């Protein structure tokens, strides 16, 4: 079976480091053409701008072509075609499938029916491994290392898949964690157990000021309205953290602020001009990391 990337745990530590190394190569020279003649399927069963555009740009910059859809309403999925049939059919045409789907586990299933590699570009609230790899790349680029860093995760730690996957991936590199969240949105017990089993230290706080000066990476997240079933619950926590430039007076010199974007109110615009803001560059890094993922899975790097 061909190698797919569905969950960040599908990659070993060595594979993660290899992809990051390859991304560095592409950041130095983003004009590559070694995939000329390849066709890549980009199947987005759910709307997305950032992820889809950066994947499709990555494919184009490697010299391959893209087919696919950005919305399932104009496809035979709306006629009731099963995911299995769609994937089987597309597998016959392309060399790789990149897919996003609202249902959890859909990408894993697709990788089992497809005859070509599948890259998960997000399956509901489950996994989004290319985001995790670009987060790691951003950490590596700003700190010069991955080992022994203190990561402060802020916001929705209960439903936020990016924080869960980043936690799993960072566990290879002896990190220390600070979890900053309101009581309603604390890091789930299963992830804390995961850290306990590996002897990785962490502390929890509900105050943003509390851990601000003790971290190398401040990983901010948005409280996602779509994850709440009770609108009152959302109202209670939506504006709980707002980072502004004047709060950054005592932070470590090397500290960088990451955010998977889009942001709503959690980072004020005056932070953008500080040397700590890295989230736009982080989004750009997504391109190099996705080029690296595609090249690796197709056996070119």
């Amino acid at each position, binding site marked *: 079976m061909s190698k797919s990337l569905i969950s960040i745990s599908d990659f070993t530590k060595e594979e993660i480091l290899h992809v990051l190394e390859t991304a560095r190569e592409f950041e130095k020279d983003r004009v590559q053409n070694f995939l000329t003649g390849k066709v890549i399927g980009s199947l987005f069963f759910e709307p997305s701008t950032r992820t889809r555009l950066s994947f499709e740009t990555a494919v184009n910059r490697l010299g391959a072509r893209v087919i696919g859809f950005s919305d399932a309403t104009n496809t035979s999925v709306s006629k009731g075609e099963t995911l299995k049939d769609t994937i089987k059919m597309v597998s016959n045409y392309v060399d790789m499938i990149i897919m996003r789907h609202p249902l959890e586990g859909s990408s894993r*299933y697709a990788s089992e029916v497809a005859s070509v590699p599948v890259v998960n570009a997000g399956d509901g609230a*489950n996994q989004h491994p290319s985001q995790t790899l670009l987060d790691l790349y951003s950490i590596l680029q700003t700190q010069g290392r991955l080992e022994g860093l203190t990561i402060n995760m802020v916001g929705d730690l209960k439903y936020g898949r990016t924080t869960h996957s980043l936690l799993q991936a960072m566990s290879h590199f002896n990190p220390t964690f600070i979890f900053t969240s309101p009581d309603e949105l604390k890091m789930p017990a299963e992830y804390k157990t995961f850290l306990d089993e590996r002897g990785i230290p962490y502390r929890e706080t509900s105050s943003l000021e509390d851990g601000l000066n003790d971290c190398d990476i401040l990983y901010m997240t948005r409280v996602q309205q779509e994850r709440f079933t009770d609108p009152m619950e959302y109202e209670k926590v939506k504006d709980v953290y707002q980072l502004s430039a004047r709060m950054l007076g005592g932070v470590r010199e090397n500290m960088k602020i990451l955010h998977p974007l889009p942001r709503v109110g959690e980072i004020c615009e005056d932070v953008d001009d500080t040397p700590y803001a890295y989230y736009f560059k982080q989004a750009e890094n997504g391109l190099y990391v996705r080029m690296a993922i595609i090249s690796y899975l197709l056996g070119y790097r």
Partner: protein
Amino acid sequence: MTHSDKQLIVSALENGTVLDHIPSDRVFKALDILNLKDTGNRITIGINLTSRHLGKKGIIKISDTFFEDEELNKLALIAPNATVNIIRDFKVVEKRKLQMPAEVEGIAKCMNPKCITNHQPIRTRFTTICRGDEISLLCHYCEKITDNKGIY
């Protein structure tokens, strides 16, 4: 038919398998898991029998049927303390304990309403997680944990 004839039909098995110490409310689920609903062989079930360990217990006797370990171990999910007696020529020739399988396929249902297996015709697949007496299942697809309510 005399009284003792009736006793004989219910209790004695010439050749086959007896599954004992199944919680009473899971006897039907056990038949399900072992795919016994379509068998042509004689099956006797008992529910709410007196048991010293369980208070009440269930029992299933299947004539002329012998199972692979792998098949029987699926029962560990719903009846971890069940015992298996292999009968040949009216005698118990072997007693077995169940072992929890590391993976189960096609048995339980994932509790996550957004899991793909609840929306498309896909056979479920789980890794079993045992913590003490508690059994839970990690979905191979959505990576969420289903507790024992999804199993029974």
